[in-house]
Structures are given as structure tokens and as C-alpha cells.
């Protein structure tokens, strides 16, 4: 996948893999006010999903992928 970490938001796209979970979590912890744009996400590895579920950052755009969007919604993130 590609993660673009911008100043006030992270833009995730495509397939978020297990390797990227750690990176996402670290960035979210360091930038608690930052928002997540996940519109282009096509799949979230369980570890990445957990990372996003366990941190409190606001999600500014839910994935277009319905399954990913539903998964985030079930975990109270939408």
C-alpha cells in the first residue's frame, strides 16, 4: 500500500499490510490530532485494522471499500 503522512493527516490507500501496522500506530500516537483519510483503502490487514481501532484519531474519510468501511463501523470508528 501507500501511506502518505502529511502534516495534519495520513492518507492510506490500497492494501494496508501487516508490516505497516506498526508504522501507522506510531504515527497516530505521535500525532493524536491528525486525521485519517482512508478513502482509497481496499483492504486492511487485521493488524492495521486493530491499530486504527485502538487509537482515537478521527477518520475524515471512510474507505470506499464497503467491507473495510463496515469493519471500522463495527469497531466504533465510523
Amino acid at each position, binding site marked *: 500500500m501507500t501511506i502518505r503522512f502529511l502534516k495534519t493527516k495520513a492518507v492510506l490507500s490500497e492494501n494496508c499490510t*501487516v508490516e505497516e501496522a506498526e508504522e501507522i500506530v506510531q504515527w497516530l500516537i505521535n500525532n493524536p490530532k491528525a486525521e485519517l483519510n482512508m478513502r482509497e483503502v481496499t483492504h486492511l490487514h*487485521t*493488524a492495521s485494522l*486493530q*491499530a486504527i481501532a485502538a*487509537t482515537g484519531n478521527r477518520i475524515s474519510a471512510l474507505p470506499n471499500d464497503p467491507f473495510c468501511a463496515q469493519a471500522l463501523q463495527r*469497531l466504533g470508528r465510523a
Partner: protein
Amino acid sequence: MSPLLEQFLIEGRDFLEQIGQKLLSLEEDPGNEDIIGEIFRAVHTLKGNSGLFDMPSLTSVVHAAEDLLDRVRDRTMEMNPELTDALLEAMDFVNRLFEDVESRGAIRPEYSAQSADIAVRLRNLLPAREPQAVGLFEEEPSFVEPPADWSWLSRVPDAERLAAYEALAAEPSVFVVRYRPEPECFFKGEDPVLLVRTVPGILVFDITTPEPWPEATALDVYRCNLQFDLVSSASPEEVEHHFRYVRDQTAFYSIPAVALALPSGESGAKTNAPVDDAMIAPIYLEQAQERLETGDLDGLLDLTTTALDMINPALHAASALRWVKRLIEAGAGVAPIEFLIDALSRNVMPDWQSYAGPVDAPQAVAAVAITQAPIEEQASTRSIRDPESARVADDLAKTQIVMLQRPSRPVELAGRLRSVRNVIANLLGAMGETGAVASLDEATHIALDGADAAPLIAFIDGIAFGETAREHIEVPALEPPLALPEAEPREAVLEGASSSVAYSASPPAPQAPASRPAMLDPDAVDPAKRSGEAAGGDRGVRVLKVPQEKVDRLMDLIGEMVVAKNALPYLAARAEDHFGSRDLSREIKSQYAIINRIAEEMQDGIMQVRMLPVGAVFQRFPRLVRDVSRQLGKLVRLVVEGEETEADKNIVESLADPMIHILRNSLDHGLETPEVRRSRNKLEEGRLTVRASQEGDRVLIEIEDDGKGIDPDVVKRKAFEKGLIDEQRLETMTDAEAVQLVFAAGFSTADQISNLSGRGVGMDVVKSSLEKVGGQVQLTSEKGKGTRILLSLPLSMSVSNVMMVHIAGQQYGVPMENVMETVRVAGKDIHVFKEQRTAVLRGRIVPLYDANQLLARDSIPQPNEDGEYAVLVVRIGGQTVGIIVDGFAQTIDVILKPLEGPLACISGFSGSALLGDGSVLLVLNLKELL
């Protein structure tokens, strides 16, 4: 070896290499889906390619490998070292088969037993399906219990459950999974979310966290803390099979489909809804129970619909009513509806777990009648002549109906309707039923307007495409079983044996030189191949497959170098004139000579890389001539000569379409039927010769037939009728000039279009498409004797010598082959006659054109201080004309590239070239401009 077979080997080896490498990287990175996908695709494509040839021992092994990889891909099987070994071994075997094909032209029969063996071994690795899964089910205890209640379903939004229930149609029960992945699952390469989203028939799911999340900083992202619940419409066997590797982490159970009916939404108390809203419920419930007692479901439906209209759809009560309505509509029967309404009246969630009532047999949902648009049915009596074509046409029409009946995303519907309209319109055209197209368009229009395919389906249904005219008795030509007989290995080996002495002289050739005979094959003319010969090696032919862009990039760079080196003579002159150093100047000059030679060799080298034998295109002609002449009932002998002549890839490729057109013309209009030929004292068998040769820096292609030739009188008359020539020309034209009229745009029109040559394209298109790549066409014809067409093309389109000129403050290039001379003409010597500027040059009146006008620039020509204008004298299409420009600059060698992208449609330019300083030079196509 046919080019197709050659291509198959090149591409096939490429795939084998990829597969081998990727299997190894997959061992490093197990479970990497991208790699698995790539391996699968390579094997799949290899299988598809091998199907083009008759090579069962190859196809069966690759097919078995594909089946295995398919299972790995859909995760019903895991990659393991044993599997990797088996696949690698299979690919090695395929490589040996390739060697056989290459060196012998066919696969040895001995290999077929080995092939069967390998295929069986591969298939034995496939996991047995259901029986094993059931066994697994009993053996392995699960650590996960089904949930005590089904309340998790209420966490799924109402809309999703409603949709799921609808998707189930009348299925009485559904299969449910609780999956609690073990915390360490990530280290096993598992992705529970992926496993869940790929569950067959998944309808709804929920995710929960068994343990609360710790502080973000204390989170261990590699410890799975999620639990999944899901409902699937697939069979229990399928779903259990899907989870068989995590069987100990799952619990399965079934629930009645109605258990999805859990009202959700806000309760009235929480909202600011008026009390009246909440009051509807008791009245409704009372009446509903009355209807249920009498089994009046229709009444209940009316009642529910009315009640729904009156309340806020966000309310819990509304959700409950929607479920009542949905259960009635789905024919769920009285019992579950009663159960639901009972729960509503007690103001509790329906506890479907305790619902023991029978699930009523599904009642058919009344089909919604499709109202057909009032279109007259067209029962056609006309038909397609060839019975097989008629059958296919019928199949095509039916297929459109099948396709239109599939659900389509709204955004795709219009496109689908239009594509079907085009299919049917073309079928009608083939039947000669063009009159029906208007009704077709009407039906399409209605379908588009209503976003409903039904009217179009009804229209198609009304046409009989399959009716074959009875009077038609022509026997259709038999289709040969294989596309390209010459591509069949067995035939190739026969050819090879008869033509190659070296091969028959050393029959059981030892391993290393075994592939040598193939090299002696006169067809093996690929330069890349020849250069590979020296390298030797097991493969016999070492071909580097390089993307064209890379070669193009090299060409560009060399082109730049050719331009850049031209600065050295100038530098030498400066060293002498400006710095007074003769020695330095001489040294620079001698260095320049060396660089110049290397640059030229490099240029030549890169051009060689791009060279292809024209035979690559000629290859298709025998079949074309055979088929077409048979179809026309003519006897034609095709003679092909000089197919080893080489030219640049682009040139060779650009030859294909024009040559096919010319050949078709000869077959169709040139060569006569055997009867006619006999009556004219000619051999019954016509002769069609295609001859390629090289002459200097051009490749010549001659296409000659001994047919009836072109009648200059007929051509002249036709051209006159079409207004292409005036009466005066008609009289003065020589016969040789007259036959050239076939190249005039607009000469070939409908009345001479036959089903073969004249697909509405005339010789003018042939001519212009060849001219685009710098080619020329000459035609000579003698009435009664035959026609000869000579194509002359540059060997390569790479380097052109152009003269740079200034026009309106910009530089343009003019191909030197057009330029006759450059002159300066005083303003007073330019005469204007009927708005046409002319000047007398070397005793001839030459028309002058203003380059600014040709290029539609606003500027006017700039004379020099002496009042003289720069005139470029060029020769275009046999005419001498002068172009007034602002000034001349040097001539240079450039690599000319055709304009691409949006620029490609701009006429007047033959291409662009990159200059040494990085700027782009547009090269004028004077012929188009004038």
C-alpha cells in the same frame, strides 16, 4: 519455425524464468498474495498459449500446475516446500519440452508418459475436498463456543440485515460462524480480516474486541484482539472448508433466517418525536393481531404499509414495521410474523433463539410482470446466407438477451444497452435487414429512457436470425482443425528434415550441438538470434527480450549524440581562428573523426537491433491467398521471394495492412476466374508474386499479378464521373497517368466495394499510410496482362536529414529529400497573379507559398536588409514550388519520431525531433501542408 511458434517459445521461457524465481521468493515470503497471483497468472497464460498448438504433453502438465496454484491462490491450500519442489520440477520438465520443440520442431512421443506422470503427481498434491473437511471437523476440538445468544446481530445495521434477508430469498436457515483468532495468528501469516471477507456467501458480520484496548502506547499491534461473528448463505460444508486451518478457533451454528429480523433504531422516548407517534404502536398491534388471527396477511401488509407512512423512519418502531412488511413480502408465513409482533407488543427484542415455530415453506414471491414496450415484433423472413453464420448470428442475438438479463450497475446500463444495440444493428445489417434498425433504435431509446432493458430484450426476441434461406445450397468451406497448420510442430519437423542437410547428417546429435541444426534453418533470420549463436549455451537460441521503450531510449540518446558531436568541428574552427592554435584544432578534428565513426557505428548497431525480416509479415499471405481465392473460385499461385530482407520494426509492421489490402485487390479485381483465363489463352492458375529486396537505404516490395490489369479508359471515365478530373484532363491524360487515378482520394467508392477488397478503403489510404512512414507507391498496369505495384520504403525511420528554417520566429525542419535549393528573391521579383505569388527561377515560373499562411500564423514574411525574401525551393509530388520563410539555418541529422497522443491528429507535420540542446523541432510535412 513459424513466427508464432517462435514467439510462443520466447514468451514461454520468459514465464518459466519468472515462475522459477517467484516460487523461490515465495519461500522467503510465504503467503505473499501478490507473488502467488503473479505465479498463477504466468502459469495460466502459459497454459493458454500452449493451447494454440498441438502439444498435449505440455498443456497437461501446465494445466495441473495451474489447478494447484488456483487452490493456493484462493487459500484452500497452503504453499509448502513439497509443493514448491513439485512445481519447480514440473517447470523444468516444461523447459525440456521447449528445447525439444525448438531443436526438433516437435515433442518426442516418449515424453507423453513422463508428462502424464508429472501431471498425476501434481494433482495428488491437491487436498481432497469435503470428506476430509468433515473428518477434520470431528477430530479437532474448538476452543471457541457459540455465543449464548444471537444478540450480536443487533449490532449490524438494520439496512445490512434487511439486504441480507432479501438476498436469502426464501432460504429458511443460515449458517453462522464465530471466529476468535488466536492472539499469535499474525506470526503464522494469517490475516483474519481477509479470511472473513472471503467467506463464501458472507451476508453480514460483526467485529468485537474480547479485551478492552489498552492505552495506545501500550498497544501490541502484533497481538490479535478481535473476534468475528458472521452469517453466510453458503452451505455449512463450504464455510467449514473455508475455515479448516483455523478450525480450533471457530464455532459454527445455524439460525433461522428470520433471526435477522431484529428491530433497531431510536426508541421513541429518546427522540423529540410527538407522543402521537409513539401511540400508533398499540393501535397498530391490536389490529395486526386481529389480522394474524384470521390469517389475513394481505390486510396486515396494507395495515403495516399505512402505519409505516405515518412514523419517523428513524424510530425503532419503524424498523420493526419494516421487518414485519419484509417478512410478509418474503412469504415467511404467519408464525414468525406472529412471533415478531408478540415481541413488539411486549416491548422486547424478539428472542429468535426461543422461536421454535416451524419455518413455513417458502412461498413464491409474485413475479413482477414486465411491461413490454409497444414495439412491433419483427418476424424476419430474410436471413443470412451461410447456414453456419446464421446459427452464430442466432447465438449472438440470444447472448445479448442473456447478458441484458443480468443485473447491472446503473452506471453501466446505458453502455450495455448501446453495445447490444450495436451488436443487433450489425446483425441486421448482415441480414440485409437495415430497415429494422429504426425500430431497434426506438426500442433502445425506450430502454435507455426507462433504464430498463426489457423493451430491447423484447425487440431482439422478435427477430429470427437463425432462419436459413432454403434455396441456399452452397456448401460452406470446411474449417481446418488448427488455425495455422504451419505452426504445428510435426509439420515443421518434416520441413526441417528436408531442408536441413546438417540435421539429417547427424541424427542423434549430442546435447550441446543438438540445437545447432535449428540455427541453420533458413528461416532463422532474426538478427538477435544470430548474434546469440556465438554465445551458445543450452538454450540454443539466446534472445534478449527488451521492452521497446528501452531501445527507443537508446535511439534517442544516440540521436542526441549525433547532434552533439556536430559541435566539435565548430570548436576546432574556433581553436584555430580565435585562439590561434592550429595544433589544438587539428587534434580536435582527429578526435571528432573518431567520435563520428563511433557514433555512426552506434547508430548502425541500434538500427540493427530494430531490424526484422519482412517475412514476419509475409507469413500470413499464403493462408490469406488460399482462403480468398477459394472463396472467389479462382486458382492462384502465390510466389514469395526475398522474405529475409530486413527493415526497421516499425517499417515492417506498417507494411502489413497495406500489403493485405493490395493482395486482396489483386485477388478480387486483378486475377480472373479459370474460365476467363482459359478464354484469354492464359494459364488457368493465376500468379501472384510478392518480392522483397533491398536497394541502397530502401527496401523494395513488389506485388505483381498476371491478371486483367487496369483499363485506363474505365478508370478515366469513373474518375470523370466522380468529378476527380475535368473534361480537359480526361482528353489529355496518358494511359500511364490514368491508372494512377486509383490512388486518388474518393476514387474507390461504394459501387466497386466487394465483400473482399473494398471495405470502403481505397488505394488512397494504402498510399497515405505508406507515405506516413516515408514510403512511396508506384503502380504500372497493362490491360489484359497484369498489374505491378512497387512499394519503396526507408530501411529505417530513424535518422533523417532535415534543413532548419525560421518561420515566424520559430524553427522548423524540412526533410532534405524535398529541398532542391535555397534562393533569395527580391521583393520586386515576386509577382502576384490571381492571388497566387510566383517568381521566375532558372527560367521557370514557380508558385510561391507563404510559410506563415501554410502554418496559419499571423506573421508576414520578413525580408532581409536588401529587401530579399528567403525562398526554399522544394519538389513535392512532381511539382516545384517555393516556400517563403524568414531564414535558413543549418541542416542536421535528427531522429524523427511520429507525433503522439493528442498531437497525432494534427496534419502538416511528419514528426518531431529532439535537438542537442533539448528543444523540440517540428518537422514539416510539406505535402500535407500544400
